[in-house]
């Protein structure tokens, strides 16, 4: 089970469909993520990319299809396997999803207490503080999330996702709500993850983040994966520097065309 003798495939989605309140959000989505890969999932709002991420992380149930982590179906994990999976895969939520009734410190300390029982409370506090300050969060750790700004919440949430130093990190819109300063510090932290060979799956529409970290580009539109190529291919196809921008521009055209199709169909 250790990383050395396992296959290159870390995450695999097979024919995933998901629906909510009667409307389809994902339809027959399949994709794979290899160890050390860094995937940027892009697409228009409401295209289902957040849902895709949550299904892949086992936070939302798939209507049909299977998600595999390290060769195991995450829907049928036993208790130990589940704990192992959670320890190895962190999740940074779009809106922070901090535990409002816990202090900032506890928001980071809880995963450590569960997965690293060998650490003492001072060690846990020290780790949390160090990680947060590397992300530029210098406020007291004794406050509750309600007193934080959206940007600060986002930072704490990302810190919580990586505090266990997982091999796979899901990031849902990591740059949202962040100011320029915070974004730079986030990049620095992600740089560190990259150096450690962490696999990253990020849902984002920030071309700067994509251009800097992504090795692969996945475009989701209307619940389907419409584009899944290595970044190099995407970049080569469209030239160098303006390529990322044109990818976004093309996404917009996709969205527009799909929307027109839909309007056409409704008529």
């Amino acid at each position, binding site marked *: 089970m250790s990383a050395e003798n396992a296959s290159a495939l870390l995450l695999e989605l097979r024919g995933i469909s998901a629906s909510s*309140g009667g409307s389809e959000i994902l339809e027959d989505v399949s994709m794979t993520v290899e160890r050390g890969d860094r995937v940027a999932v892009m697409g228009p709002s409401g295209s289902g990319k957040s849902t895709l991420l*949550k299904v892949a*992380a*086992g*936070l*939302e149930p798939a209507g049909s299809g299977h998600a595999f982590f390290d060769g195991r179906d995450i829907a049928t994990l036993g208790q130990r396997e*589940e*704990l192992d*999976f*959670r*320890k190895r895969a*962190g*999740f940074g*939520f779009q*809106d922070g*999803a*901090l*535990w*409002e*009734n816990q202090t900032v410190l506890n928001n980071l300390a*809880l*995963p450590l*207490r*569960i*997965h690293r029982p060998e650490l003492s409370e001072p060690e846990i506090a020290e780790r949390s503080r160090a990680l947060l300050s590397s992300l530029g969060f210098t406020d007291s750790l004794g406050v509750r999330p309600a007193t934080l700004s959206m940007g600060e919440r986002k930072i704490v*949430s990302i810190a*919580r*996702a990586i505090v*266990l130093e997982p091999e796979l990190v899901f990031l849902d819109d990591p740059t949202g709500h962040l100011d320029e300063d915070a974004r730079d510090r986030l990049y620095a932290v992600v740089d560190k993850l990259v150096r450690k060979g962490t696999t990253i799956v990020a849902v984002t529409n920030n071309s700067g983040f994509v251009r800097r970290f992504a090795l692969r580009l996945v475009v989701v539109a209307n619940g389907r994966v419409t584009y899944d190529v290595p970044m190099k291919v995407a970049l080569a196809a469209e030239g160098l520097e303006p390529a990322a921008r044109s990818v976004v521009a093309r996404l917009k055209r996709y969205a527009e065309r799909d929307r027109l199709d839909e309007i056409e169909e409704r008529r």
Partner: protein
Amino acid sequence: MIESIGASVRDKASRFLYALAFFGRVVDRSLRFFRRRQVGYKVLVFQILFTGVEALLVNAVMAMAIGAAIIVIGSSLLPQFGQSRLMYDIMVIVITKELGPLLTAFIVIARSGTAIATELAGMVVGHEIEAYISVGVDPVSFLVVPRVIGMVASLALLSIYFNLFGLLGSFLVVQLIKPIAFAEYFQSLLAALAPGDILSGMAKSLVFGVIISTVASYQGFAIGRASTEIPVAGIKAVGQSFVLCIFADVLITLAQYA
């Protein structure tokens, strides 16, 4: 028409099964809670603080009022039938066995049932539940179980205090209006009180505690994504808890007398 009935029955049945499964999970995790010391311990302490300690005042006032009413009415009405000793039996039946547990449950439903349902519903809306799952914390073990155990413990403790205030506190209240001899009162009360009465009151408290906390947690978890559903979860939790508690009360009482 028939299809809509069928669909609603299927929907109800599946929800009922889900609720049963939820309850089973709660029971399972509750049993595990005691086997190892969990991080949920702190949640448990706070649950007892909020549900038990903070409801004590309302509970005590209510108990003393009811107890005093029984003493005043009983000591003036019953001697007319030559049955003044019946008063102690009535007090034990009303305060220890019947009304005490039920009224305590009502207080707790109004205070903590809504609190649990809306708090958990708020967590669902704020994706906090997903966040717990994402770090490997089972929300049932961590969030529901301490609340269930805390609620059960609080109700049991509150019903002890309800008895105390209802049987003895009310005596002090009555002293202000219509003095009666303490030794005689206390001894008659102790003679009227049977271990079965205390046990029955306790059993009710336990059952009510399980009902209220499970229903409230379930309703809290059962909402969708909209923040407008949070108060709805609270309302549903209160309504269902009321009905189920009264139902359980009747069943337990019937089981004793049948």
